[in-house]
């Protein structure tokens, strides 16, 4: 107990049961799949399919999440090598190569049996490959390439990619929603054919409402982090994000746990409890963390670095009023689209035209950040291509400096905690300098 108290990051107690529930879900669905329940491998699809799959009784695995598991346990190396020997270029997404190698091993060497060395019980062969047209190209090309090993059909869920200015044109928003609704309607019809079962629309409506509520509570929780000192560290966000990003199983149970987290964070705000021992620097983090070196953040916490916000793309949508919308598919479409485009009007006002990068500017301002920690993921271009731009935008507009650090999603050696810690020390002076600069320019932090 005494040892716990000394930890530099004051972790939320309510976040552990949330994580435990997600892990237990994973085990349960993996068993259900092995027992023959219809299974989908899905890309991260930002709530487009979750309620639908849930109600149709399709269990889901996320190869994009299985990648870090394989990387952390060392299994990835052989899968990556296998992908290379199958002829897939080595410069592509590490998670994709991991899955391609895994699939070659499972389907070609083991006739569909899960490889015995696969961590966490492996991923059973799917009946459906649910890919995604959202942002990165790997998200549909990778699943298409899996056709080499599997006879499972590939379905692409599309999300429009409006430019910041174009989104403001009359009619564009609604056109985009309509396209998504049409796509979802066709997806449901396809799924009905695939699993031989009809959609229960009332249940779908309810499941979607639950997901919206889970996300709303999670959003409100993160809003509370604007407080000084910030009551919740990014580590708690990362521990808790999976449940909200991939809501599955008993949604009401999940919602209860998110509510508990909200209450705990709210209590901390009311009582000025900080997420770290002494908050000196408030940091916004971009992209996925080095999963294998999370202890590194404790070292920074000892130096007073509080990670108060992180990548907008793993956060739920900013809540929107959907009262009166009875069609669950329309709700799903509006909800996901909101996640993608909600900040565009503000970006337009500020004459920033790269929507993906803009979210961080908002965060740096709203959460009054002293610095940005930008973690480059070398083989994930979607998560990295904006980082230099972001660095430039933050300093130009807000006088917030960035520390850019190399890393990767599967090649764990690229992230060197010792080296980064040294750089961080030097970066503190930079943050102090820009704190003065901001004062001179009339910023309020």
């Amino acid at each position, binding site marked *: 107990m005494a040892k716990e108290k000394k930890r530099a990051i004051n972790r939320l107690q309510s976040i552990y049961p949330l994580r435990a529930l997600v892990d237990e879900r994973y085990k349960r669905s993996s068993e259900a799949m092995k027992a023959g329940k219809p299974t989908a491998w899905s890309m991260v699809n930002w709530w487009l399919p979750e309620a639908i799959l849930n109600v149709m009784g399709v269990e889901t695995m996320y190869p994009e999440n299985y990648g870090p598991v394989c990387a952390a346990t060392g299994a990835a190396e052989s899968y990556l090598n296998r992908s290379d020997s199958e002829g897939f270029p080595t410069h592509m997404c590490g998670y994709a190569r991991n899955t391609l190698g895994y699939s070659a091993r499972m389907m070609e060497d083991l006739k569909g049996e899960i490889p015995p060395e696969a961590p966490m019980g492996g991923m059973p062969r799917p009946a459906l490959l649910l*890919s995604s047209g959202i942002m990165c190209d790997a998200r549909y090309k990778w699943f298409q390439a899996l056709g080499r090993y599997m*006879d499972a*059909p590939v379905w692409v869920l599309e999300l429009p*990619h409006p*430019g910041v200015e174009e989104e403001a044109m009359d009619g564009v928003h609604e056109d985009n929603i309509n*396209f998504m609704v*049409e796509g979802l309607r066709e997806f449901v019809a396809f799924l009905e054919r695939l699993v031989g079962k009809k959609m229960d629309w009332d249940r779908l409506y309810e499941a979607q409402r639950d997901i919206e509520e889970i996300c709303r509570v999670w959003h409100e929780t993160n809003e509370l982090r604007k407080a000084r000192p910030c009551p919740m560290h990014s580590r708690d966000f990362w521990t808790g994000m999976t449940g909200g990003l991939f809501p599955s199983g008993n949604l009401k149970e999940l919602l209860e746990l998110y509510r508990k987290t909200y209450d705990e964070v709210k209590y901390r705000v009311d009582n000025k409890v900080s997420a770290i021992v002494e908050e000196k620097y408030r940091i916004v983090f971009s992209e996925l963390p080095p999963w294998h070196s999370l202890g590194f953040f404790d070292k920074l916490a000892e130096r007073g670095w509080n990670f108060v916000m992180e990548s907008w793309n793993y956060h739920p949508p900013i809540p929107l009023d959907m009262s009166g919308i009875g069609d669950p598919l329309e709700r799903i479409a509006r909800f996901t689209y909101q996640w993608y485009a909600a900040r565009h009007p503000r970006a337009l006002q500020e004459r920033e035209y*790269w929507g993906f990068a803009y979210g961080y500017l908002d965060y740096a301002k709203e959460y009054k950040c002293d610095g940005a920690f930008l973690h480059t993921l070398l083989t994930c271009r979607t998560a990295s291509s904006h980082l230099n731009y972001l660095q430039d935008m933050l300093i130009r507009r807000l006088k917030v400096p960035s520390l850019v650090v190399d890393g990767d999603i599967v090649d764990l050696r690229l992230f060197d905690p010792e080296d980064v810690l040294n750089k961080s020390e030097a970066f503190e002076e930079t943050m102090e300098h820009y704190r003065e600069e901001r004062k001179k320019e009339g910023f309020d932090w």
Partner: protein
Amino acid sequence: MGQETSGLARAKEIYQDRGARARELKAEGKQIMGYICLYPPTEMMTALDLVPYRIYGDMREPITKADTVFLIVTCAFIRSYLDLALKGKYDFLDGLVGAHVCDCGEKASHVWRNHIEPPYYHFIDVPHTVHEAAQRFFKGKLKYFKTTLESFAGKELSAEKLKEAIESHNQQRALVRELHDLRKPDPPLISGTETLRVIKALTSVPVEEGNELLREVITEVKERKNGPQKKSARLLVWGSVIDDTALIDMIEDAGANVVMDDTCVGTRAYWEDVKLTDDPLDGLTYHYLVDIKCPRTFREAVYGETKKDHMADLESRFSYLRDYARGWSANGVILQVIKYCDTHGYEVPGLKDYFDSLGLPNTYLEHDYTEGALAPLRTRVQAFLEVIG
């Protein structure tokens, strides 16, 4: 750059300094509209008297400025054109039409918008799928593009004008196909390098000027006696954008004739005509979304199929490449991908399966869009040519 030269010499001249021709046109009062990749419909620009001007990189120029705004581990073709733009080498453009071609292509469009602030800018969202809802959606996007383009040009884009422009561009497509037919004989009448120069020139000048150039080239090539030599290897080249002759030169120099291609500064934009539909936007929608076969678009044998058969899938996606190989008597295939080009990279093993099933020898080359990177590939190409025999 006067207009004294003609045919292949003129194509070479434009190829070598395409900006010079654009500046001349600008001095004549034309407005030059930049666009990225193949997806912004050039017909709409032509119909409004704007000169469509495709954006390319320059693999001979070191990237120095773009790295401050775009991460180094992205397609170097994109970084290169951003670099040129940041260095002011595209300062004659009156606007830019960006598009969601691939993820990095989209992002680079936004960076261009932010950093270059062109007088006109429009971003076209392009769906990844081709089913009817996606076509309706894309048509909607073309309508929005039309609105902003009209207001920039200060005039209305009438259906008649658009149809006329489609006809001119279709004429260009037919002429390009005719040009490619000249690669069928053995030896081909025109080399891969020369063909690339011509196509790149076409994407730098007004459509009618391009058509005139094509007619001259076709006549000249048919008549000349000093065309390419007969070589035992006749290659089909597939892959990411090739906007510089260095790669094709290297392959032809190593002892092959490049007789056909499936790249976007080659056949890709020209193989099908735009259908002349009552509403011309319907024809354009279908052409740009469905006809153009770039791996950035997801296709499957049967929409919504609940079972997948790998070979049937490959056949439905790649049979046009078999037709190219047969029609142009190719006896080998080079698959080339610019490092970090995901859309093309994922296709490689499937394409190899497909060409293997046809008994066509094939090899994969990867490069980082620099001239220097091509030298080590030469040995690989030579080894491959030995396999072909």
